[in-house]
């Protein structure tokens, strides 16, 4: 009984410590992202800020990967299909140790390893070049299929935008993943409700989005995409689901963490100026 209580206490402490660590990472990455985009003078803060918790849980908790060996064959794969959230990916990769954090200041600059959208040829840790929407799930299909063929244990994660789900290729790919029973594949949809031209339901209705995925043969989980334990348990349940790929519809806030960016479509693709940057960093610093 005592032993059991002890192990329970250790587990609780581990979870608590992990959460604290993850929260710190998230906070740092959020600040990196706002600052990087402001420094670059262009970029996509809204959809970068929305998905930081999800990407952090993947890189700092869920995925098996090795920043010293980005091409390790057994690694879990992450495909950023919504390539415009590149700053989040870059800041996460830097925090994980794929390249120095100092490199982040070169975002979008000439000759930089950090292109406006993810570029496999230039950035260590980027699995595939993305940016043109709708293509990541297909690539993830291929990776998952290869994993099955080779009897490998790795999992493939792909992050899509909700506006991105307008693309026909997403649904071609969705059909394929379930047809080939790719249960080693997890898709996450950043359901932040806004795309460039406005609210998703005004621009091009995507609801009922969960039903759509379900109809395409997927296991569907809906979560609050900013709650770390909900993300962790959704990804855990995806791993347990057999014979079906899982999609996590993660409800997120576009521009999360910066009051004047939250729910503002305009910040999809607008960099904060110096004044806005200071305000944003101040808010993020004081956010606990």
């Amino acid at each position: 009984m005592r032993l059991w209580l002890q192990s329970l206490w250790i587990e609780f402490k581990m979870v608590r410590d992990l959460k604290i660590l993850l929260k710190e990472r998230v906070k740092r990455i959020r600040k990196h992202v706002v600052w990087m985009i402001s420094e670059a003078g262009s970029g996509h803060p809204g959809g970068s800020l929305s998905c930081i918790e999800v990407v952090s849980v993947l890189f700092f908790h869920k995925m098996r990967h090795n920043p010293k060996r980005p091409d390790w064959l057994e690694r879990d794969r992450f495909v950023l299909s919504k390539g415009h959230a590149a700053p989040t990916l870059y800041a996460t990769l830097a925090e994980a140790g794929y390249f120095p954090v100092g490199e982040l200041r070169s975002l979008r600059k000439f000759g930089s390893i950090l292109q406006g959208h993810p570029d496999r040829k230039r950035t260590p840790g980027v699995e595939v070049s993305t940016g043109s929407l709708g293509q990541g799930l297909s690539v993830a299909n291929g990776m998952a299929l290869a994993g099955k063929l080779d009897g490998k244990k790795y999992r493939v994660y792909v992050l899509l935008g909700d506006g991105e789900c307008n693309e026909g290729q997403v649904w071609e790919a969705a059909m394929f993943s379930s047809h080939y029973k790719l249960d080693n594949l997890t898709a996450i949809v950043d359901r932040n409700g806004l795309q460039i031209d406005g609210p998703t339901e005004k621009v091009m209705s995507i609801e009922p989005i969960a039903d759509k995925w379900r109809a395409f043969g997927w296991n569907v989980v809906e979560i609050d995409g900013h709650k770390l334990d909900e993300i962790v348990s959704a990804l855990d349940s995806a791993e347990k689901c057999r014979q079906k790929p899982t999609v996590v519809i993660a409800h997120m806030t576009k521009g999360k963490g910066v009051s004047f960016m939250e729910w503002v479509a305009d910040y999809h693709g607008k960099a904060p100026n110096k004044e806005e940057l200071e305000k944003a960093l101040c808010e993020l610093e004081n956010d606990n």
Partner: protein
Amino acid sequence: MTTELKSTRDAFGDTIVPLGNKHKNLVVLDADLAVSTKSICFAGRFPERFFDAGCAEQNLIGTAAGLALSGKIAVAATYAIFSCRAWEQVRNVVAHDNLDVKIVVSHAGLTNNSDGSSHQSIEDIALMRVVPNMYVVVPADYYEAKKAVEAAVETKGPFYIRLSRSKTPVVFDEKYEFKLGEVVKLRDGKDACIFACGTMVAEALDAAEKLSQEGVSVRVVNVHTIKPLDKRNVLKHARETKVVVTAEEHNVYCGLGSAIAEVLCESGIPLKMIGIRDRFGQSGSESELKKEYGLSSEKICEAVKEILKSRKK
């Protein structure tokens, strides 16, 4: 050249199975056209390494890219025109990341005759040629197609291999040594040079034979690799013969003729292009279409004579 007729798509079907034996990491994908493209041969022999994407070309190419990123040599087969539907996927992922994806297409040109314009492809060389990193190969006959598919599988990087539905004259034989990126002189001549690719190579040889009977000595050069183009030898053959005619089953815009013209543009060597004159195709028999669109040895002969005449003036 014999009178034997064989299609280049059959060459794909006949080669891909031994290649599958040799390369355990070779996978083949199709988009619901496996019977037509002949990828069915691979599917029958290696069902576990064959994936039908259904009629969904964008996902076909994207999935092939993902497989290539995971250590596979991924062959994606469909009709030429439908591969162009996934052009942006080819450009942004396959070519940009320089992946081992081999796009092998059949039914190129007008020779998917009865189906009509929607299923014909007269723009694909142009579209694939402008993408960095892509190899673009247009085999002249069955044997060259076999060698080209082998070379593509055994060479790193993205390929576009353009095959034909129709049975065309056999130019080479099993012993033919194919060298990727090198033009092949098929017939010597000193008065003019015809650069041809694909189904037009046999027409060019036919034209050269006809012209020789009129006392005109014509060289025929097979340009199987449109990209990267063998610029040095193109220039050499052109300089030695002094006039050039190109022949292709493709729009004259941005295909073989344009590629040759890009090499010769500063040389002052006159050039005439035989190809489709920026029009869409239509249904008809192969011979009717060839006549209507000027894809014949007669048209090549006329072009050679015209260009020689204008030069004498």
